[in-house]
């Protein structure tokens, strides 16, 4: 019984933290999305997918936020760097909305 209440308590805390911690932080996925969906292809051309893996400032999100496994996180990082090189993704945050002016 005590164990039960403890575990539910920690669950609640985790949930509330994931909602309150940082507006844009997506809730951590429990599994690597590339492992659970084999059809997802890691590609620098798919920049709309990669946008989910960068922060507003354009940094690559760490693994604790993306939930990706080590292998796929390496791939994500590689493809983001490629996409940055050909200006599909920003190196820094200032982009689109701001620069349209």
């Amino acid at each position, binding site marked *: 019984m005590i164990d039960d209440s403890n575990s539910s308590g920690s669950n609640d805390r985790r949930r509330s933290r994931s909602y309150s911690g940082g507006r844009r932080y997506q809730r951590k996925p429990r599994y690597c999305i590339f492992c659970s969906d084999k059809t997802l*292809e890691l590609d620098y051309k798919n920049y709309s997918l990669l946008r989910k893996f960068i922060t507003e400032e354009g940094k690559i999100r760490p693994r604790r936020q993306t939930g990706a496994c080590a292998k796929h996180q390496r791939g994500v990082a590689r493809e983001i760097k490629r996409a940055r090189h050909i200006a599909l993704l920003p190196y820094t945050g200032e982009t689109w909305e701001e620069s349209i002016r």
Partner: protein
Amino acid sequence: MNTYELVVIIHPDLDDEAIDQALTRIKNWIADGGGKIEKTDNWGKRRLAYEIQKQREGIYYLMDVILPPTSIAELERNIIILEPVMRHMIVTKNES
């Protein structure tokens, strides 16, 4: 012979003729290196995520190129000199 993906970003102010000229030069270099272009993809004029050479837009071309690895360095050297190309990238195509 390996398959590579070549992305070039061409200056947005150029007319079609100049773009064609640049692309044929790239094509000739690839042919000289003993390779060939499998397919060319025109993404059209796109907004850049950041400025390159003071430009906010660029014309993107994606090419699948079959080329012996020894001529990659040569091709890359040539593309750098080619003026209409603002940015280029050559990566090996991932097999999947």
